[in-house]
């Protein structure tokens, strides 16, 4: 199906869920994750793992999605353990550096929370196509029309942005090739030459993209696009299972899974 994004095309109960339910689930899970303490987190881990199993995503594939964020969270963890005042841990007297018990606790808890947030969002993007995500968002944002925001326009913007991604990649490739063909050295090693190649890329890339935008706007207008109301190929309908899941989620958010903070 789509060659970009993380979506894994396969059949599973989670794949078949209404995208709105999945969006609400991710939001609910995030709220719960931010509320609970370490024991609550273990429960959430179970929920996420169950979700992954239900979606037929191997745990390894789920862990892989965490890899890009690891350096960032690693730094966060270090900040927590070194800069949280409290009782020093007896086992880690590395020179003058002290690690506090509270620091370790806070670090584990916060980093655990962030990793869980990413993991639950990953289950969503692994099981939902970009167009389903757009569609779900569009339906969920419909009430915003009261404050003058058109959900159709938002959805159009998102889907155009997604549609542009492969175009952008192609454009970069062709500019690179054009520059290489004229003897440019793109395998720069020093920082200044690296910056220079980026500048040489940015100029033509932005003019090309703007020209493409002009043409796409014409093509959209020619096909009768107007801001505001429109209809879609697929309409979403909530099933009883969807309704049930939303109810459970709402209850879970209102009464946190466990009483322990």
């Amino acid at each position, binding site marked *: *199906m*789509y*060659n*970009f994004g993380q979506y894994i095309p396969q059949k599973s109960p989670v794949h078949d869920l209404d995208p709105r339910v999945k969006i609400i689930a991710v939001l609910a899970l995030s709220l719960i994750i931010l509320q609970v303490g370490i024991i609550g987190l273990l429960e959430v881990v179970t929920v996420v793992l169950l979700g992954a199993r239900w979606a037929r995503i191997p745990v390894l594939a789920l862990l892989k999605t965490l890899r890009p964020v690891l350096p960032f969270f690693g730094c966060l963890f270090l900040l927590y353990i070194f800069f949280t005042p409290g009782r020093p841990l007896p086992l880690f007297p590395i020179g003058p550096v002290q690690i506090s018990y509270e620091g370790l606790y806070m670090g584990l808890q916060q980093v655990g929370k962030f990793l869980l947030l990413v993991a639950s969002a990953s289950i969503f993007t692994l099981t939902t196509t*970009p*167009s389903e995500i*757009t569609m779900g968002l569009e339906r969920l944002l419909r009430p915003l029309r009261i404050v003058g925001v058109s959900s159709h326009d938002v959805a159009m913007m998102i*889907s*155009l942005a*997604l*549609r542009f991604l*492969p*175009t952008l990649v*192609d454009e970069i490739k062709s500019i690179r090739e054009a520059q290489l063909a004229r003897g440019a050295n793109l395998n720069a090693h020093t920082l200044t030459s690296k910056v220079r190649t980026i500048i040489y890329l940015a100029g033509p890339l932005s003019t090309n993209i703007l020209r*493409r935008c002009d*043409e*796409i706007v*014409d*093509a*959209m*207008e*020619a*096909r*009768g*696009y*107007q801001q505001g*109301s*429109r*209809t*879609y*190929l*697929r*309409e979403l309908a909530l099933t009883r299972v969807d309704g049930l899941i939303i109810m459970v989620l709402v209850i879970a958010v209102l009464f946190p899974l466990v009483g322990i903070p």
Partner: protein
Amino acid sequence: MIQIHNLTFTYGPDPSPVLKDLNLCIDKGEHVAIIGPNGCGKTTLIRHFNALLRPSSGEVLIDHLSTRDPRNLLEIRRRVGMIFQNPTNQIVGMSVEEDVAFGPGNLGLPADEIRHRVDEALSKVGLSGFQTRSPHTLSGGQKQLLALAGLLAMAPQYIVMDEPTSSLDPVTNENVLALLQELKCQGLGIVQITHNMDEAALADRVLVMNHGEIITDGKPADILSRVDWIKSLGLAPPRITELLWLLHHNGEDVRTNIIGLEGALEEIMRLLIQLRNPNQLGVPGKADGHV
């Protein structure tokens, strides 16, 4: 009917008009080819047909709906579908079916009607089975077919195209031309800008533009066979017409108002028979000696 009365168009503050006082009438079910050198205003003219541009003065009427009235906009754009030169830059959807559904969605049709139209349009252009493919994985020709499907899904009365086949391979090109012919037979009006004179030869009517004016309007055979005049405009006549014209100039007795392969074949066969017959009747011995 597309009616154009005294159309003059000027881009912004530029004092010299791109289109000068044009008058034109195109009927439903007519296939019109517009030819002319680059910068003669062809593209500017056809952009008036679906109100992408509005006249600086004069009037453009699509089935008696004026392009000046914003209330007519959606209906005019439903009636007049437009295909642009670059197939990639007219794709809006994230998948083939969503792209075809864009137009009907703009018309506000219900989902099941959109589904019906999408599948029908895709099968018409031969892209059935590509529904969930990502458009950027299609070839240039397939993208142009996709653009055509997106337009057919809106059930247009006219199809206006800006060099639609310039980026197609010969086989896809044949397919597109055959499809256009079929649509024409169903009563759709087709207006097509082209630099390919063999394509222009297939039209019912050819308009020649130069410097923002329509300088000639008539049957392809009458216009395209004026080889030296066509060349003086910076255009290339059909090769086969040019060949007959050269034969004629070398003193052979052939008609030059032929623009298709079949007509040319007939004419050349006639010439050959004419050449053979006097030989056989006059000096048979000499002819035998050569054979």
